[in-house]
């Protein structure tokens, strides 16, 4: 559900599968640095064609070092990824354009690693990492957003054991770029809603898949409506057991939240950097009220950055806590407040907008655009990937153990739910 704008220039993928295998777990930063240097000595980062270079990097286990050997990694501690990324960047090596495939890297890949078969991992992970195959996420539907488990896209088994799928998905970021989709569909309408779902990979080029742009309040169309009409999905592209779709989807969403909290950046590396620069460059725009807000936002953004660092340290020390769910709530609110502040600070300039042209971008680009765009785009941050209200429910119930609201839908077969 996260469309993954490249907010804080995450290095490489930002995913968190626990793909570590014991043999690589003793690797140190020095080992990784040595391997990257050896690799660069053998594979010229400048003269080697980009795709060849990325293939070779993947095959050397230096793509996502915490993935298992043979799947682009070394089974090394996750914390070492930043070492590899830094070395490659310093050598001027081409990267895999992580912002162009945020859902693939942040959500599809860890799901495939955790729940996919050996064959599926081999087939999908390499072109996913290199960016040859972009992935999108077909979860939300017009009638099922926060209440994802109520979705109605149907997958019916054909006599050959494969699946025929029909339904409508919506708000699908980058579907117009995607070769593959992770898809949740209903395989059994006769059981309560969470139990009748299954998880698939959908080939977006299959007949019956139609992608229509859906223009958003920024003027452009990052996201789409996707109509699925009698689309054939081979059973080999099912991820996880039939009826386990909710479990797999929950895994996907968890990865996403940790990915956001796990981003590493220097001080003023996020949206606050632009606001602070504007503040320094325009003394004539300063007022006492704006100053107070500037200081508050700067402090909160820096503390959020430190909290992200602490979260990564917890993960690296094998103490994964629930703090990841806090990170997205904070990040959404701060992005919105900071960008709103930026527009006001711009004064008369803030009345202009850079471009309302309807385009279908390949990336969300916060930083290449004006404050007005950032202000509008940030509104999506508290909706995409689980709304901030839903995240508060999750914190209240799963972290604090507070009782849930009375539920009317838990034990009722999906087909009998009121709608």
């Amino acid at each position, binding site marked *: 559900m996260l469309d993954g704008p490249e907010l804080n220039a995450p290095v490489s993928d930002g995913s968190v599968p626990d793909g570590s295998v014991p043999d690589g777990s003793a690797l140190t930063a020095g080992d990784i640095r040595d391997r990257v240097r050896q690799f660069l000595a053998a594979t010229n980062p400048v003269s080697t064609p980009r795709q060849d270079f990325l293939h070779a990097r993947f095959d050397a286990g230096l793509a996502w070092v915490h993935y298992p050997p043979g799947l682009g990694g070394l089974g090394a501690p996750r*914390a070492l990824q930043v070492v590899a990324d830094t070395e490659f960047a310093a050598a001027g090596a081409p990267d895999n354009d992580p912002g162009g495939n945020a859902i693939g890297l942040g959500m599809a890949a860890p799901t495939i690693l955790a729940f996919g078969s050996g064959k599926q991992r081999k087939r999908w992970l390499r072109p996913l990492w290199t960016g040859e195959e972009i992935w999108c996420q077909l979860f939300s539907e017009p009638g099922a957003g926060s209440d994802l488990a109520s979705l109605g896209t149907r997958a019916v088994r054909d006599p050959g054991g494969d699946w025929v799928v029909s339904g409508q998905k919506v708000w699908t970021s980058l579907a117009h770029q995607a070769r593959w989709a992770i898809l949740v569909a209903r395989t059994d309408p006769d059981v309560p809603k969470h139990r009748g779902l299954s998880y698939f990979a959908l080939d977006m080029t299959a007949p019956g898949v139609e992608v229509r742009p859906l223009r958003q309040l920024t003027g452009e169309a990052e996201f789409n409506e996707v109509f699925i009409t009698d689309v054939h999905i081979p059973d080999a592209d099912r991820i996880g057991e039939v009826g386990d779709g909710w479990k797999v989807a929950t895994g996907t969403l968890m990865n996403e939240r940790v990915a956001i909290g796990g981003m590493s950046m*220097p001080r003023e590396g996020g949206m606050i950097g632009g606001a602070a620069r504007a503040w320094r460059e325009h003394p004539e725009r300063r007022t006492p009220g704006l100053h107070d807000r500037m200081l508050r936002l700067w402090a909160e953004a820096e503390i959020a950055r*430190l*909290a992200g660092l602490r979260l990564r*340290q917890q993960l690296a020390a094998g103490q994964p806590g629930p703090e990841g769910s806090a990170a997205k709530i904070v990040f959404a609110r701060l992005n919105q407040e900071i960008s709103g502040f930026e527009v006001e600070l711009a004064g008369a300039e803030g009345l202009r907008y850079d471009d309302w042209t309807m385009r279908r971008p390949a990336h969300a680009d916060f930083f290449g655009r004006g404050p007005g765009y950032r202000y509008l785009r940030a509104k999506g941050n508290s909706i995409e990937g689980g709304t901030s209200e839903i995240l508060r429910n999750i914190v209240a119930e799963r972290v604090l153990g*507070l009782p849930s609201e009375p539920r009317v839908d838990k034990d009722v077969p999906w087909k009998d739910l009121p709608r």
Partner: protein
Amino acid sequence: MSIAEAEAAGKPGERAPDLLYSEAERDLAGSLRSLLGARCRPEDVLGRLGGPGQADRPGETEPYDTVLWKAIAGDLGCAGLLVPEEQDGAGASFREAATVAEELGRAVAPVPYLGSAVVATTALLTVGDDLTVRELARGDVTAALAVGSESAPGAAFPLTARVSGPKSSDSRAGVHRLRGRVRGVADALSADLLIVPSDGVPHGLYVVGTGVEGVRRTPIVSLDMTRQLCDIDFEDAPARAIASGAEADRALQAALSAGAAAIASEQLGLADKCLEMTVAYVKERRQFARPVGSFQGLKHRLADLWVGLTQARAAARYAAACLADVDSDAPLAIALAKSYCGDLAVRAAEECVQMHGGIGFTWEHPAHLYLKRAKAASIAFGTSDAHRASLARLADLPGA
């Protein structure tokens, strides 16, 4: 290989000190928590503050629990955490000292840890008063820095006390006499020694015993009864000079910085405890035939508090790490931690009162202890606003 190494880089803001609790810290916190759980329960603290028969004498009760302090200071060695082992201390770092403050905050413990083991000890360590440091580290005596409890790092050297020449009867060389008044000092009522900033040529820091003639402490009816303040009058009190001029400035600033960083951890602990108490209560209390904790109007506010705690913890640990590592980013880290944790603790305590309903408004429920400590602590060592204002300079964000 730690993240700290992986992310280590030159500039502050790119360095990544360890923000987790070490095993030693977790052990220390665990021992302290069980001690406090046995001897500093809410009813124990409440009992000191005007239980039956005392309610009509507010401000005249015995706020500090000296027996408890002996156990924390001596048995657990918390008095000497910041003091090197060669000077009879525990040779720990500011990280451990902050962890202890966090635990004491959870219990609103009425002990002079912050004033004596952190603030006064830091001043004495900075000037190298070896003998007094040793006494403090052993927990034999306690000391307080005689400044108004609202004094923030960066405050001007206070000059409300001044050196008056020696008396004719003063035979010993090195005896000075102090005159003047210092208002609103924390942790001084239970202190054996005062470290007094004083005017003179040059200005300096002096040590004065509290038991001598010429020192009068007048208790203040304080908002935070668990950390009672007093005014102190000096009338030709005998004093020993320990630092003057720039050295005295340095010691004062070091002490106030340490106090501000430690109280941020105390506020973190307080907020954590308030959330814990409140969550436990709303799970149990039923209205409308369901636990009140199942109402989203409360759940979301509690979730937000928890989110705030994840941020506060990162800020408080970063400040503690910067002091422990003598990092040049310490002033900025302290400003972040004190402002954020201060505001959060007040909010947590206010929500604690509100979500307990009528019972939270009673004297017998401990929520008010937390509210009063939180509000007072948000002013002590500089308000949140003052600390944020210092970011204008520290983060290069100048005002209008």
